[in-house]
């Protein structure tokens, strides 16, 4: 696509206009956005938005990442029925037409998945869903698990269409794509003034200061370390505490592995093929016919997680497949913190070399 030289463009939207804007897009199709969990106030969840007032743009994190808008936890891929040849009917994805309230880390993760799922052979389901959605990002304030800044994604914008930063008058709106501009079309906005930009910049600085947790080496050096040394003691130590429950992967915004299963209908002649989120930490993830498991030991699976996130995918796509969102550390039932463990690896690699 030709780059539009007028972009990004800027304007300001008031909180009241955000409500009207949301009400407007809700009338035109399914919209997903962050809202308070009905079962536990204080926690947030990305879900189908039904009332504009349910949208919460100031939230810290959500239990599951917004990738579920394009890559649902479970979905039907096609229906089949017996015949010669068998009849296969693809089932198209049903993404929201607008995904609201995505933080920079999660935008960066969607960008990572865009790359991973475009790698041949491309995942057509992901592409189909992504092509039908408009993404509105929003800036955030970090909590103690966030380390996005040291991964360079704390101010990520790609691939959002619109991006909001909270300011005194409401939000400073950045329009990044023509689709975003069209979406914003009917909303009541005003010109962005010098003061608005200053406030947005101030807020970005506050955010950067608020991110206390940091990776102690840049991702490129981390990849080199992981390639150079086995670190087996560290993997074994983590494995001793790890349940292999897979929650680190299933809450990860940048994990993209799935498993497939066939479900028969009651005529026993037809059914559907489903795919669902999977996890490389699970014992049977790399099981093959004959019963062999490629990563039989728990420590091998732990190592695989770090190698995927920070070595193999880094080499292939030029970026780590971790955004520092902290969901895995928060969700870990056994209290394993990805940042602490990664910094331990870096410390072990740099020990006695005079370049910490």
């Amino acid at each position, binding site marked *: 696509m030709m780059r539009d030289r007028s972009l990004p463009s800027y304007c300001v939207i008031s909180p009241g206009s955000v409500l009207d804007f949301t009400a407007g897009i809700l009338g035109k199709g399914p919209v997903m956005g962050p809202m308070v969990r009905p079962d536990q106030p204080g926690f947030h969840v990305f879900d189908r938005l039904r009332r504009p007032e349910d949208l919460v743009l100031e939230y810290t994190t959500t239990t599951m990442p917004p990738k579920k808008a394009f890559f649902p936890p479970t979905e039907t891929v096609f229906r089949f029925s017996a015949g010669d040849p068998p009849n296969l009917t693809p089932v198209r994805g049903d993404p929201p037409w607008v995904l609201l309230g995505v933080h920079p880390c999660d935008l960066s993760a969607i960008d990572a998945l865009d790359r991973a799922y475009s790698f041949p052979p491309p995942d057509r389901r992901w592409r189909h869903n992504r092509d039908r959605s408009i993404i509105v990002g929003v800036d955030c304030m970090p909590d103690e698990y966030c380390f996005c800044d040291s991964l360079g994604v704390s101010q990520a914008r790609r691939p959002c269409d619109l991006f909001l930063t909270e300011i005194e008058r409401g939000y400073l709106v950045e329009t990044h794509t023509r689709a975003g501009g069209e979406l914003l079309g009917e909303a009541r906005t005003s010109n962005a003034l010098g003061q608005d930009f200053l406030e947005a910049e101030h807020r970005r600085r506050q955010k950067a200061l608020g991110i206390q947790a940091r990776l102690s080496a840049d991702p490129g050096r981390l990849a080199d370390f992981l390639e150079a040394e086995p670190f087996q003691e560290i993997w074994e130590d983590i494995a001793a505490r790890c*349940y292999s429950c897979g*929650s680190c992967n299933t809450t990860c915004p940048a994990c993209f592995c799935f498993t497939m299963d066939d479900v028969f209908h*009651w005529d026993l002649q037809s059914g559907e093929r489903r795919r669902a*989120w999977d996890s490389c930490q699970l014992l049977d993830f790399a099981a093959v016919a004959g019963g062999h498991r490629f990563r039989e030991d728990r420590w091998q699976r732990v190592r695989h997680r770090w190698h995927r996130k920070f070595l193999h995918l880094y080499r292939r796509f030029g970026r780590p497949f971790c955004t520092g969102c902290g969901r895995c550390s928060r969700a870990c039932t056994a209290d394993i913190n990805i940042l602490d463990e990664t910094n331990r690896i870096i410390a072990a690699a740099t020990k006695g070399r005079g370049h910490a």
Partner: protein
Amino acid sequence: MKKEKPRIAFFDFACCEGCQLTVLQLEEKLLDLLDHVEVAAWRVAISGGSDAYDIAFCEGSISNREDEERLHRIRETAGTVVSLGTCASIGCHNALKNQWTGGEVLELVYGGEAGRFETLPARPVASVVPVDYQILGCPASLPEIEIVLKRILTGQPHPLPNNPVCVECKRNDNLCVLEKGVMCLGPVTRCGCDAICTSYGDACQGCRGLVDEPNLEAAVRVLTENHRHAIMDAVARGLRVDRERIRTWFSLYNGPDLQLEQEKTGHGP
């Protein structure tokens, strides 16, 4: 020519018959099932019954000689034997009594009449005869019952699901109950229930048995030691959770599994 429908039969051993009742909860889908099978015997659903059947669903644990003999007869008659529910598949609550080997349990239950009864350690069906399919859950999970019925009728195997409950729980976008200060056995418990308890905010009690290679040491540590989740830490302290208590909790459903795991790895709660 239309193929003859296989005949199914249900048998109960030491149990509450709740799993048979759960199969009845297929409700309108029972009509679909009846398109493919004839019912030979099903005590909670029909009167009478016949001794000629092809697929036998056995619920409950085997806990005396009479049970053993009856189960052997069933195995000889049926081409396919299914252990239905946790009592039949891993022993469940019945196996709690196995920790007392003498006659104490008999006396506790039957008092002066204890001498009239004979009892054996409670065992799952598969410890007595070969089993072709297993369905887990207390009670057996309805979606899994449906899946296994279809697999039997289409001649497919049904390997036990081998992920922890956490996987299904996360796919349902649940907030981890640990975050709410509820202790949970989900990380070491076999899935297949669609995380029904945790999806309603309750703890997993482990009713489907342990996954293969559960990290029990990690479970004990998480449940006893100081925890980063402040709220859970408070709960752990409030309950004064110690190893013994955790052992009791685990044993509720998993007595025989724990014993096996202990023998294999030397670890256990």
